[in-house]
């Protein structure tokens, strides 16, 4: 892989990798650093990059590891879990149109609900439903067995479904029956 290939890869995957890191870290600055570090690691180990469809899972594994390193570095600096601080680092967006305000509110709601989840559940959920990885790819990305990923995804969904802030999106058996 040369610089042109890396440039192409960045164009293709940088945005998604960056936003994945944002969701994991809940801090734009840390996410930017983590993704940059991830792509630097990709570059350093460019000879080890697998060919074919496994490349995406490999990239996200590097991204997740970079995020974990970032969290550990932050924790060691502050001496505590900086999850709350990270939330404060969300980009300050002025609610210009009403739609934008509604979207921002929705984003804040889902992020707040996600913040309640432990990393072990949150990261597979993000990789599955935002990054669009398959369960097998997530297993590669987080270095766990597919069965573990399946179980964690199930647990994460159940917990989100119990969150009253997301009640509007929760489908019950009754509503499912009615929709039929």
């Amino acid at each position: 892989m040369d610089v042109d290939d890396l440039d192409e890869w960045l164009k293709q995957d940088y945005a998604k990798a960056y936003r994945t890191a944002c969701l994991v870290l809940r801090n734009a600055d840390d996410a930017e650093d983590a993704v940059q570090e991830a792509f630097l690691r990709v570059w350093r180990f460019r000879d080890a990059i697998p060919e074919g469809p496994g490349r995406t899972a490999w990239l996200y594994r590097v991204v997740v590891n970079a995020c974990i390193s970032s969290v550990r570095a932050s924790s060691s600096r502050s001496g505590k879990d900086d999850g709350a601080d990270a939330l404060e680092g969300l980009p300050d967006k002025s609610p210009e149109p009403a739609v934008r305000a509604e979207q921002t509110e929705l984003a804040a709601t889902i992020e707040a609900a996600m913040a309640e989840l432990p990393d072990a559940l949150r990261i597979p959920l993000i990789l599955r439903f935002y990054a669009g990885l398959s369960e097998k790819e997530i297993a590669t990305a987080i270095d766990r067995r597919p069965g573990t990923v399946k179980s964690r995804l199930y647990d994460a969904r159940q917990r989100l479904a119990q969150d009253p802030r997301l009640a509007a999106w929760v489908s019950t058996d009754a509503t499912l029956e009615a929709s039929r």
Partner: protein
Amino acid sequence: MNDISDDDLSRLLTEAASSYDVPEHGPTDVLAAVADQPVRPPMARRPWIQLSSAAAIVTAGALFFAVNDGNPTVASNSAPTSHTQLAERARRDALTRSAGSIKAAPDLAPAVGGAMLTSGSFGVAGSGSAAGGVGAVAVPAPAAALTAPQAPAALPRVGAPVNDEGESRVVKTGSIALVVGDGKVSSTLKAVESAARHDGGYIANGTTNEYGETPSGELTIRVPVAKFEDLVSQVRGLDAKVRTATTTGKDVTAQYSDLEAQLRSLKATRERFYLILTKTKTISEILTVQQRIDDVSGQIDRIEGQRKLLANQSDLATLSVSVSEAGDPIVKATTKPRSGISQAFENAKDGFVTGVEAIISHSGRALLWLLCIGVVALVLRSGWRVARRRMV
């Protein structure tokens, strides 16, 4: 059951993610950082690599001559830029580590660290000093006045594998307690030490107690197993009364051969893993194979340790010699004859204690018998009542 559909989850997470604006300069920054990556000099030119390599080569050479088991440990470092090189490096690391007693050098870890390797067991390379040569005998320092001389050069090489003729290996140990006259403890200990040296042995441990009115001393002697009986005879022949003397011998030839067979098998297994390692293609495969190699190396180290211990014990016999004066309370306690009345009281006390112990020890069984008899009696009584009613 409540649930959120896949589509809703995707929509919600996409919504949350879209609240983060992707920095336009992000990819450019990455490319700039890539361009800023220092052109690392060839690893062979780095001073610490040179030092580590030199140390590894010297250590490996020393181990090769000491062990002579044919493990090639000479390593030359180069930048791990491909799977093959990473695998080769991991193989060399494992070889160097398993060659024996080489400390890990953590400063080498970052050389192969990285995203995929942070959770792996990479980063250990041999560059430390060898902790004790193979076959060296650990000689603890004496606790008191006696100085323990170093093992003489004439000692047989401890830990040498069983030769092709299958020499037998016997672990011999013994202990002798001598009682000497007043003021003769020190001279007797010196005589014992001299006898040990004469037989090619050495003092592994020695203590003397010259405090108070009853000086005493104790020596632990390691002597070539062939000279063990001779040493025992010399010690018994000293101008001292032998209070107790015990010697034991245990044939461990079969156990030793079994350990050697296990070692050969495990080394062959490890060689096969090394071969597999050179054919690995992904980091995940390398880590998996590396883990297996580490496991096997751990087993080899453990069995090698057992083999060396057994070899040491069977090459050098151990004899403990204690010397005390006749006035020593311990000696008095065991040698002074009792009077008849005193012995009678002692016997009475022993008899009482023994009787109480017997009652207590049998009480459990007696209780069980009583319970069984009681249950049988109840059953019989109930059966008799039922039978009597029927008869009526």
